[in-house]
């Protein structure tokens, strides 16, 4: 009983419940029955027709949630996920199109290229903070816009599929794709992301570097006294974060429709959903997995809710944000350094 009471008092449960209740008020306001609507969310995302789509969404959401959780564990916020994601996707598309190697090797190379592109770009944001004193929050976000513009330019002009009316690259050669499970859209990408989550869990719990990261997140000045080198840690965490975001981009390109389509990677808003999941979980590894699944269910279920009740699916985005508003009002992440920097 005590555990149940404790769980109910936790800010996480509280904010999720608050989100669900306020979402129900919205539903009543638009004249829909909340039970029917939430039922449609669950049956649409977890039923036989929806589970494949949910797992595909989980791949992207969890990947980006991990990407944002890893720096967040040390109190760093990477807001440039979109830029790292598209650069990863573009790097994978270029590698996939122009590597004269056997298909399986090309796939591997494309995944690595995507990770490298994302990592390099995220490291740039870390360098901005380390060497120019531009807060990471701002530098990562500002860098994201030119990256999206660059990828958009490449997909519209030099790499555009000849004759197509869409801003997209050519389709990748036959076989240059991640193997899918059966006839579903779920690919090996899901396994890669789950593997990344497991690695994060292990590093966080069992290794010295994981301990250093957590200590920096809890109290960065104490960690600095204890010998954690702040700049190096920022750089490594951001590179890891960018690599994961890039990996999600590469997985996206190496799955259906097997090409880079301008806007396709960023339009569903995976970066922001991932960030909400990471924030909700306080960047804890298992919590991040659970929160990502929860938000993927919401996102996919929103479509079937829209079909059943004619309530716009954007409601699920509102619900997500409300959860974080409630959470943020009650929780504090230590982030002394950023605050000082920003208050120039």
């Amino acid at each position, binding site marked *: 009983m005590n555990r149940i009471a404790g769980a109910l008092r936790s800010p996480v449960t509280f904010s999720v419940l608050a989100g669900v209740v306020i979402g129900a008020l919205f539903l009543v306001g638009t004249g829909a029955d909340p039970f029917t609507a939430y039922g449609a969310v669950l049956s649409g995302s977890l039923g036989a027709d929806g589970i494949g789509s949910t797992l595909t969404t989980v791949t992207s959401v969890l990947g980006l949630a991990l990407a944002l959780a890893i720096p967040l564990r040390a109190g760093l916020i990477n807001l440039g996920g979109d830029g790292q994601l598209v650069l990863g996707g573009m790097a994978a598309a270029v590698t996939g199109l122009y590597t004269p190697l056997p298909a399986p090797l090309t796939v591997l190379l494309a995944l690595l290229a995507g990770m490298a592109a994302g990592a390099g770009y995220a490291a740039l944001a870390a360098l901005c903070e380390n060497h120019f004193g531009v807060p990471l929050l701002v530098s990562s976000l*500002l860098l994201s816009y030119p990256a999206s513009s660059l990828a958009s330019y490449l997909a519209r*002009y030099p790499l555009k599929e000849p004759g197509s009316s869409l801003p997209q690259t050519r389709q990748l050669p036959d076989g240059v794709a991640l193997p899918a499970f059966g006839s579903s859209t779920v690919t090996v990408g899901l396994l890669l992301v789950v593997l990344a989550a497991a690695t994060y869990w292990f590093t966080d719990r069992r290794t010295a570097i994981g301990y250093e990261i957590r200590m920096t997140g809890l109290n960065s000045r104490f960690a600095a006294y204890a010998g954690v080198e702040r700049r190096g840690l920022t750089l490594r965490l951001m590179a890891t974060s960018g690599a994961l975001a890039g990996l999600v981009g590469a997985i996206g390109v190496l799955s259906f429709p097997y090409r880079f389509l301008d806007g396709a990677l960023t339009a569903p808003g995976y970066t922001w959903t991932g960030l909400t999941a990471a924030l909700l979980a306080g960047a804890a590894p298992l919590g991040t997995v659970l929160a990502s699944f929860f938000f993927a269910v919401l996102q996919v279920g929103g479509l079937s809710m829209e079909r059943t009740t004619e309530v716009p699916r954007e409601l699920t985005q509102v619900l997500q944000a409300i959860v974080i508003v409630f959470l*943020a009002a009650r929780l504090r992440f230590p982030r002394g350094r950023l605050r000082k920097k920003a208050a120039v």
Partner: protein
Amino acid sequence: MFFDSDLLMSALRALTPILLAALGGALCERAGVFNIGLEGMMLMGCFTAVTTSWFTGSPWLGVLAAALAAAAYSLILAVGAVTLRGDAVVLGIAMNLLSVGLTSFLLRTVFGVQGTFDDPSLAGLPLVGGFSPLAYLAWAAVAVATLMLSRHVWGLRLRGVGEAPRAAATLGVSPAKYQYAAVLLSGVLCGLAGAQLALGNVTLFSENMTAGRGWIAVVAVMLGRALPLGVLLAALLFGLAEAAGFRLQGLGLPQQATDAAPYVVTLGALFLTTARRRRRTTPAGAVS
């Protein structure tokens, strides 16, 4: 001629929303509240301005409603960060997300359209001497904010609250009261910025139409060191980058290059100023 009066005019037009929002951000910064929810407050302003103007036929009521709605929205930050002592950074991010979801949701429930609401009979703001009335208001706000912050007792207390909240409280100045005032004022200013964007610069509402301008305003606050005049200069820089981008697009540069220009210019300016400030403040050989 590339740099001519037309370029300056369009730069001045582009800077108004940024300037209004950044002034709000500067007030919050001075009061010791880190406000990165400017983008979300602006977007709420855009939507309210368009909706009100559409249903009443008056853009002025639209402006008024936008200011009120964004101020009401800013209460999330005021209550969350000042009263409940929550994390202002996370609150700001959540507010930006919430505004995107909420306005897209309302766009579909109120107007039944997705993406963009655009109607020829939607009344926009009139131009006075080539500028929207809100542009003049923004310049006046710079002057008023400068005077209030440097000469008036209210501004002195606001700064005191930001720099030493405990000392201020000891002197009988309630930090919470001044911080609430700053956040609500930033809401009003962001609402005006949104109204200018949706009824001045263009006459329509589209999903996420602020497109990072609120973040540019956050950077303008940093660049301008939270001084109204500094913020004006920073916003002018952004306006020039945007106007020059449009001009270059006319000369055949792809749109993507010019889209990215303001962000790159802003980041570059941030490098230069922080690097210089660092050299001045860090003694030689010290590790920062």
